């Protein structure tokens, strides 16, 4: 297991325990403190501190012009962030749910992602778009979607998904410091604790998990680097966000010696880590919550196949959300839990 990843030079200090929300809050706090060009805005993020409380206390601490509410117009939020980025600021905006990022799609695709290229570097717009995504909270179809694949198809954007408080803070700081626009998708189901899809079992808080030890101050987790959470010899499981816990649980439950890789950054993806693993194991299962067809699993499958064809001993399997909207009452039938992953692992092993 790659946990805990203590901060470099931490030298054995006892670190505070944070859940993912607190870690994200701490990242923004750190960056507001360090860089006067960082500012935060979005629906309800100001006085209230956000519907998931990620920006709690930041307006009080830094004032209303550094953390404020916006009108309910996601297109306007992203557009003004682009203008600010072009000015030289580093806006960090929250889209209340990833499901509500679509009204801003044109500004993201045609503008944020293209500005540097089309102006040959004359203009660029550093910005981070934070947004909670994914299911597992009975949010129904418009509070549960996983739209990551479409962002990975938009060249010019980076797409990042953390899976622990430690990574969440370190990756968010990297995203804020990055000079390109970053879509930072937060797996909302694991804001308060890791979740492996065993919804009938008691909830585990982050404090029980080593990766909840989060340094107070500044540190980064680099973009573009995956994390091998469990090494194994029999197959490779590629996952990100909430799904890494499903993967780990399936690996344990199945008794199959699987290597579990948390991608952390989807674009640019850490191809070397993926290829090294699949070349070793010869088998690969890819899991995500998003609908299957043209999901990010398709790209991963294509990449693995292209890079590791001669090492593959069985078809790569995708375990994903079904190609339906996320149905309220069928939360657990929809959510790709450890049983579905285990079944796929067995097929891949036998294949």
């Amino acid at each position, binding site marked *: 297991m790659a946990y805990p990843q203590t901060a470099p030079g931490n030298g054995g200090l006892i670190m505070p325990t944070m859940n993912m929300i607190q870690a994200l809050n701490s990242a923004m706090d750190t960056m507001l403190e360090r860089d006067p060009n960082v500012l935060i805005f979005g*629906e*309800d993020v*100001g*006085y*209230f501190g956000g*519907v998931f409380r990620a920006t709690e206390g930041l307006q009080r601490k830094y004032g*209303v*012009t550094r953390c*404020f*509410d*916006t*009108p*309910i*117009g*996601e*297109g*306007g939020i992203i557009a003004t962030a682009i203008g600010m980025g072009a000015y030289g600021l580093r806006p960090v905006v929250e889209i209340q749910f990833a*499901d*509500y990022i*679509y*009204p801003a799609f044109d500004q993201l695709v045609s503008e944020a992602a293209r500005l540097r290229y089309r102006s040959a570097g004359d203009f660029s717009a550093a910005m981070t778009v934070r947004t909670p995504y994914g299911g597992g909270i*009975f*949010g*129904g*179809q*418009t*509070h549960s979607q996983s739209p990551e694949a479409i962002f990975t198809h938009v060249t010019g954007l980076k797409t990042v998904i953390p899976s622990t408080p430690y990574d969440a803070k370190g990756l968010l700081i990297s995203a804020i410091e990055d000079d390109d626009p970053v879509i930072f998708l937060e797996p909302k189901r694991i804001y308060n604790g890791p979740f492996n899809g065993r919804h009938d079992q008691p909830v585990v808080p982050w404090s029980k998990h080593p990766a909840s030890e989060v340094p107070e101050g500044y540190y980064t987790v680099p973009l573009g680097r995956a994390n091998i959470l469990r090494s194994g010899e029999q197959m490779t499981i590629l996952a990100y966000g909430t799904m890494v816990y499903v993967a780990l649980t399936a690996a344990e439950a199945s008794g199959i010696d699987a290597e579990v890789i948390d991608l952390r950054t989807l674009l640019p993806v850490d191809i070397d880590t993926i290829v090294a693993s699949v070349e070793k194991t010869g088998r690969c299962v890819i899991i995500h919550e998003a609908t*299957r*067809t043209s999901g990010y699993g398709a790209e991963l499958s294509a990449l693995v196949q292209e890079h590791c064809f001669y090492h593959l001993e069985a078809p790569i399997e995708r375990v994903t959300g*079904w*190609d*339906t*909207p996320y*149905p*309220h*009452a*069928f939360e657990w*039938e*929809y959510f790709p839990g450890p049983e579905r992953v285990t079944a796929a692992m067995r097929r891949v092993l036998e294949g």
Partner: protein
Amino acid sequence: MKNRKPLSLRVPQPKYRPGDSPDFTGLVVPEAGSVRRPDIGVRPHDIADLAYGMIRVLDSHHRAVGPWDPKLDPETLRRGLQSMLLTRAYDDRMYRAQRQGRTSFYMKSTGEEAVATAASFALERDDMCFPSYRQQGILIARGYPLFKMMCQVYSNPADPLKGRQLPIMYSAKDYGFFSISGNLGTQFPQAVGWAMASAYKGDDRIAASWVGEGTTAEGDFHHACTFAAVYRAPVILNVVNNQWAISSFSGIAGGDDSTFASRAIGYGLPGIRVDGNDFLAVYAATQWAAERARSNMGATLIELYTYRVEGHSTSDDPSRYRPQDEAKAWPLGDPIVRLKNHLIQLGEWDEERHESANKDAVEQVRASDREASALGTLGQAKPSIKTMFEDVYKDMPWHIRRQRQEMGV
């Protein structure tokens, strides 16, 4: 040249936050009856003042006064009152159901019942409504079975939406109630499209839609107004200004700088501002707008000035961002109390009848809940799993069929 003073960023702030004592005496509330009622044929440009006034019918003595008095018969008023009571009782019960863990989520319309109810009374039964999540009152006013609403809230086997939607996101075509979306504002221009279709076909049905004041900031609001104006669509566009959008006060939507009704002016649409807690005013304004629409004069934008008495939803805690007693200080009162007082003033109602009407409403809700709950609440029982794969498309394509098979259902 470069001796200019520094710029500064303005971020609007509400007057009161938790701990403050709200005081609305500064709020300009025009006298009931003081706003003129123009002919429906009026040029929108000539009634810009109506976007800044406030149409009110019920005065402080509970009388109906002025040109906007729709002169409804007491029986209609009583039905309106009962419908609002039923809506409130329904909201209370479903809210409690959520608190009891019987469903995942709920949203009340408490304090805003007149908005949906009076409009429903003023519209024809076959006009198509494109509501937000806070106009459940429309379904109730139109007599949609509470039982079915509850089954939807519980996502149980009798849920007409087969467990697919978040509670409160009803759909009832036969009752002229368009499927509620989780994405704010999308229904506003859709209503315009529906109205255009009705006009295209030479039909006589009109459309109506509702968004919150916070939602007016979405591009969809603008698309709706633009297309409605250009094609003179027979549609009523309602903005329910209940002062809050989750934790954001109306100033964050631009409400400090102008009224929401005034947004209409730039499109050449009539924009009228109405006391949303005054059943008669809402009825009269809707009626006026409906007549215009039916006469091929096009769309009207109505701002309904009201107050969101409860939290945004069961996920919200308003005491974190506004004074606890703000609702009580709100000067436009409670729509149910105001209509009740009017009926009493007319000699058509009394406290006893009110008490018993309220009990009836609560009892009706309770009975429906018993019936719905008996079929299961969220997590206890639900529609058959294989239905989860249906209706993505009219006919199930191969890839979804195989996924259903993969699931073994």
